[in-house]
């Protein structure tokens, strides 16, 4: 890796693969994902942790990628929406979202799916209140959350 003045080498794992990228210390994880790694499934919204469209899973917990400095992710495991499923092999949550009409404009969807995934991994049979709380850090303006919640409740049906 060529030396770029002012930049530091960052090593982390993204969607199961080891990644090395030169980063500016001021860059956030969001910036690195979207612009250096071209993983644009993670969206840029408010950039201050209020909307959740930049949600990724880091070491098993959902975080707002806009509120993590890139260099804080050294040696960590990051899961983005690209790692959730592929067009040929959708994750059950993705299938459920499609089936229940839980996607309108789609901008909140990547973050919403990852929050749902993290929720179900900790709690396989959440109550309605637990689901609402689990996605409470992901704003949606299109759906009123109704079909999103239904999709999460019915993922195994």
């Amino acid at each position, binding site marked *: 890796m060529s030396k770029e003045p002012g930049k530091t080498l960052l090593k982390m794992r993204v969607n199961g693969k080891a990644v090395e990228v030169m980063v500016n210390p001021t860059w956030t994880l969001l910036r690195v994902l979207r612009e250096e790694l071209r993983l644009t499934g993670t969206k840029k919204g408010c950039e201050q*942790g209020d909307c959740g469209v930049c949600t990724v899973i880091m070491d098993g917990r959902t975080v707002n990628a806009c509120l*993590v*400095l890139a*260099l804080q992710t050294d040696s960590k495991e990051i899961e983005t929406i690209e790692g959730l499923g592929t067009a040929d092999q959708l994750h059950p949550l993705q299938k459920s979202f499609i089936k229940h009409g839980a996607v309108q404009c789609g901008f909140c969807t990547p973050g919403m799916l990852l929050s749902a995934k993290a929720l179900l991994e900790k709690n396989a049979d959440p109550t309605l209140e637990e689901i609402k709380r689990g996605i409470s850090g*992901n704003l949606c303006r299109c759906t009123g959350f109704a079909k999103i919640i239904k999709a999460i409740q019915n993922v195994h049906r």
Partner: protein
Amino acid sequence: MQRFQFYNPCSVEDALNFLAEQGERSKIIAGGTDLIPGLRLEEIRPDFVLNIPEINPFSGIKEIDHSFWIGPTTTFTEMVESNLLSCSFPALVRSAASVGGPQIRNRGTIGGNIANASPAADVLPALLAHGGELELQSKRNGKRIIPLAEAILSPYKTCFRSDEILTGIILKKLEPGTRSAFEKLGRRKAMARARMNLTLLLRLNHREEVSELRIVPGAVMPVAKRMDRTERMLLGKKPEPLLIEAASKTLAEEMVEVTGARWSTEYKIPVLKNIFKRMMKQLLTV
């Protein structure tokens, strides 16, 4: 964001050495949920950012004799998931559970909530009610322990020196029979700054008189503190409704003494009184 250099210390000593040199030009980052927006808006412009979540001795929750020690990089989620804390300090855990949303709670830390010293903080006032002590360390002066009540000087300003790190939060165990409550009033049910919060700790003696009472309202004053005049009104007495009503008025007065009359006072006075009375009623109906 103004350019800064990022330093990732490998130990407490490493961090303290760094701060001894560069403390004045540094900012410490834990969860980053307050710091990063500040950096982005260039409200804060450090030359160095010191990353502390990877330092092991800064995390954890331990029971030590009659106290609990909480590591400063303990996240709000970790506080909520801690059986130890949930059993011993349920109101404090409620305050942690009330912050933001899951993503914020997974990163935000108890140390950050203290060090950021926002007037609208949720965990900080609850901690004050529980009589927390802070462990601060520097290379030059070693360890010192100060009451949390002395740590916050003004909004967003602590008494921490530039070469110091908060290395622990100490909470004495509550006497058996202590009842506690935390309520937060926000504009919506998640992702909301507190419009007002209130922490109460109450203990009655065998004669049903108040033997301990701690009242800390949050998000209504520049710096949260115990409302001791109101507390004294009830100490040693039976908490009858009329007395509680009178105490609620004193509580509002104590608040206004600090804040003066502002546009929000006409809302805060009646609502603080109402919340106080409601919470007292709940605590007494146990």
